[in-house]
């Protein structure tokens, strides 16, 4: 071994030792978090790695992701070259050629050259985006975030240039086959005829290159590039179940003094791993309805600040210290305004390449504020009270729950005990004047199709969704338990509801409480009735419109084609699509309990969405959610867009089957 080789080996060993120490610290930091089970489904998880890491599917869902794809793969091949070169310095004579043969080594070399050039281009484009284009998604109020990004990009640029220079010397010295290194061969022209000591030049360049690599290794864990370490395990351990399913809290401990999260160690280890996984690409904030309407919340900044908070606090925590009050997440990292601004629409989670789960974190913080501190926007107090006393978020007595059905022939579950469909009316369908018309349309359609159905009437209570998303898990569970008891009294085939919030709660969250039932949203069920010929949908005259995807129906539950097919079968003449639609639909602004809160900061989310609708030039908004309907009605009024009708798909279908406009 040469002296250089020995020095390199010593430095390498030292760097590796420090890196190992850092890794151990990172793992110990994760263990500060609360337990959470994330295992099983190994095959699916490996598939995730192939699709999301190797093929970078989500990264590539936006054009700028191509740059990351190139840098990712380029860096892997460059690193192969680095390993080869370092090994060659330590073990004289080591090379891929001697190991894998001429052709294989040639291919590695060729890919290094070609990807190298592509990486240089990608970095220049990246820097151009950051400095000239300044896209919304990269905006953050922490200058350190940008410095980190630029430093890393510049270092990678330098590494690639050094690699090409080192290889070009290899070509000149005949160690590398120039046919497999076209770029290096081209670069080698720079070194010819300058009287350089090629051997010395190579040594100097290689040392610079390797030292940068070592620096890189030690710098990564302290920068946003920690995602190189965090993203892959985060993707492997991602939530494979339904999106946005909240964890169930246990209220068994009557001596508990605290509920929900207020300090960093209240989060689970997986939630902390999320912080390592963040690439700071900012796609979440570019999709966030709160951020896009000038509210203080940005999911990007939330994760960024939480990571910095963790980095600040971990030294003390790992030394066995505890978090002091001023080390609380609120308001150090998240202000209450930010926490309440979230509509839980899930757009952030739908975009996130390393599959960070933002919404649960916000709900965890809300849980602390509501249940432990009893601190929340004043307008929520009557909402909570009324859900406790009258089982609905509207300020209406529970005995009035069935009044919407007066004068209609609506069979009550209590008089049937066994039936095929339980039509779950929901609070909106029971109390909101506009949504009541959808309930009545549903009754007309179910009757017309000859469905054996019933409703619970005053026995029905709020499904608990609003309370749950507002962080009042205790109240939510009281409602859930009461409903499960009521539902248990009856024998029926399935629950059908016109509310995506009830739908998601029954389908995804009630099983957490031991209740399983077949649950269908009315868009699915009505389509089924039409397909089976039980409802003959004639064409609806002059109806050009656009269907607005409800977050909890489309993004959360993948029900995208059913309402559209239903509208098509009704002969809706023109179905326009919102610019943001299906999985990338834009929230109406009412989710996550926002329906019940004032919206005083920034522009109004529903008006933003109405603006998007008005650009389409059609005069019908088709909805499949009572909240979306309210938000559109209000938004259209605010924009003074007369002549536009907001209609639930059930109302349109009733017209299509000749039931008239109710």
């Amino acid at each position, binding site marked *: 071994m040469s002296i250089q080789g020995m020095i390199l080996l010593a430095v390498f060993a030292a760097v590796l030792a420090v890196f190992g120490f850092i890794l151990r610290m990172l793992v110990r930091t994760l263990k500060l978090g609360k337990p959470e089970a994330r295992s099983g489904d190994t095959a699916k998880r490996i598939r995730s790695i192939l699709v999301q890491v190797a093929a970078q599917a989500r990264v590539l869902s936006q054009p700028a992701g191509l740059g990351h794809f190139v840098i990712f793969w380029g860096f892997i091949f460059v690193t192969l070259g680095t390993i080869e070169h370092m090994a060659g310095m330590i073990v004289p004579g080591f090379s891929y050629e001697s190991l894998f043969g001429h052709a294989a080594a040639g291919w590695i070399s060729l890919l290094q050259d070609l990807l190298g050039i592509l990486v240089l281009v990608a970095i220049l484009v990246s820097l151009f985006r950051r400095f000239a284009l300044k896209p919304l998604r990269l905006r953050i109020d922490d200058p350190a975030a940008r410095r980190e990004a630029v430093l890393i990009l510049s270092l990678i640029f330098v590494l690639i240039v050094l690699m090409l220079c080192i290889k070009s010397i290899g070509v000149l010295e005949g160690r590398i086959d120039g046919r497999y290194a076209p770029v290096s061969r081209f670069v080698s022209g720079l070194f010819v005829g300058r009287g350089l000591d090629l051997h010395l030049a190579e040594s100097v360049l290689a040392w610079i290159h390797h030292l940068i690599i070592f620096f890189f290794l030690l710098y990564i864990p302290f920068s946003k590039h920690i995602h190189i370490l965090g993203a892959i395990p985060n993707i492997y351990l991602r939530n494979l179940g339904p999106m946005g399913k909240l964890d169930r809290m246990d209220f068994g401990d009557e001596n*508990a003094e605290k509920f929900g999260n207020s300090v960093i160690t209240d989060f689970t280890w997986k939630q902390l791993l999320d912080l390592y996984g963040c690439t700071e690409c900012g796609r979440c904030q570019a999709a966030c309805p709160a951020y896009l309407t000038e509210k203080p919340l940005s999911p990007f900044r939330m994760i960024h600040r939480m990571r910095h908070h963790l980095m600040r606090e971990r030294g003390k925590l790992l030394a066995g210290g505890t978090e002091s009050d001023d080390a609380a997440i609120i308001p150090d990292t998240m202000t209450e305004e930010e926490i309440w601004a979230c509509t839980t629409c899930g757009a952030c989670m739908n975009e996130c390449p390393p599959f960070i789960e933002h919404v649960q974190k916000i709900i965890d913080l809300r849980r602390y504020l509501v249940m432990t501190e*009893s601190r*929340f926007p004043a307008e929520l*107090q009557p909402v909570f009270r009324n859900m406790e006393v009258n089982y609905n978020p509207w300020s209406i*007595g529970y005995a009035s729950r069935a009044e919407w059905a007066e004068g209609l022939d609506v069979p009550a579950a209590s008089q049937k005990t066994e039936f095929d469909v339980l039509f779950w009316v929901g609070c909106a369908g029971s109390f909101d004047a506009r949504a009541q018309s959808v309930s009545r349309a549903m009754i007309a359609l179910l009757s017309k199709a000859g469905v054996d159905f019933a409703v619970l009437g005053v026995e029905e209570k709020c499904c608990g969704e609003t309370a749950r998303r507002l962080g009042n898990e205790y109240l939510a569970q009281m409602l859930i338990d009461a409903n499960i008891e009521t539902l248990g009294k009856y024998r029926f085939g399935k629950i059908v509801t016109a509310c995506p919030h009830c739908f998601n709660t029954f389908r995804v969250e009630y099983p957490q409480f031991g209740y399983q039932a077949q649950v269908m949203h009315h868009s699915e069920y009505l389509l089924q009735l039409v397909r089976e010929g039980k409802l003959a949908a004639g064409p609806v005259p002059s109806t050009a419109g656009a269907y607005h995807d409800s977050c909890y129906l489309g993004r959360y539950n993948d029900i995208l084609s059913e309402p559209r097919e239903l509208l098509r079968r009704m002969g809706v003449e023109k179905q326009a699509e919102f610019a943001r639609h299906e999985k990338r639909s834009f929230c109406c602004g009412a989710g996550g309990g926002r329906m019940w809160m004032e919206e005083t900061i920034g522009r109004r989310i529903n008006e933003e969405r109405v603006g998007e609708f008005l650009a389409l030039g059609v005069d019908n908004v088709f909805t499949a959610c009572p909240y979306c309907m309210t938000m559109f009605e209000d938004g259209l009024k605010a924009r003074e867009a007369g002549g536009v009708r907001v209609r639930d798909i059930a109302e349109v279908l009733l017209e299509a089957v000749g039931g008239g406009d109710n």
Partner: protein
Amino acid sequence: MKIIVLLKRVPDTEAKILINQEGTGIREDGVKFVINPHDEYGIEEGLKLREKLADGSKVTVVCAGPEEATEAIRTALAMGADDAVHVCDPKLADPNPFTVSEVLAKAIQAEGFDVIFCGKQAIDDDLAQVQSILAEKLDIPQVNNATAFEMAADCRSAKLSRRIEGGDEKIETSMPAIISCDKGLNEPRYASLPGIMKAKKKEIRKKSLADLGIAEVPGTGRSRVLKWLPLPKGGECRIVAAEETVDAVRELARLLREEAKVI
């Protein structure tokens, strides 16, 4: 300091009130009961005073009412009250304000008190008598419909505001006193979950009339409710519609003059 807060269990503000067939009361099936909303201002003021004093003062809920009132008492305990006295006796089935005041006075005297907060009236019968009779029985000053309350540093007097027609009235009273609370005095808190959990273990001292040394139901015969009658059914609602708003207004005016004869 011993802070007493009075509590009555009343039907929820959103409940549909129906008179029972005998006309002796309301139908309780389908009616949810809550803490009298005005009493909540009293509870909150008591809790705020205790927090301000921070000297080991105690807030005790005193309630005279049926067994079912326990739920409302627990809610007050969840908000933060320390303990409660619940006078619950079959003999109190149909009490008049004099009866209730006499019973409460005995219970409060047994507890001891430095200040008493209560709602300005109960939203069910709207009688607003208990605080005055109680003041008389306990021989202490009363200030009604308080919208601001500030205890003096020596706790021997307090300054209050009352909302009156066109302005505020500033009052000073010696302590102990009974303060009836109005909307605007404070924003009653929402019980936190640790508060709810702790409330399950807090003491509610159940008392019968005998426990309070009351042999005869006091105030019997002073006044009693003869009969409860439902409201006469209102007339049909008509919507006057016309192409032009002006025409609708004209038609409405004509109907009010010629048919309803009110203008």
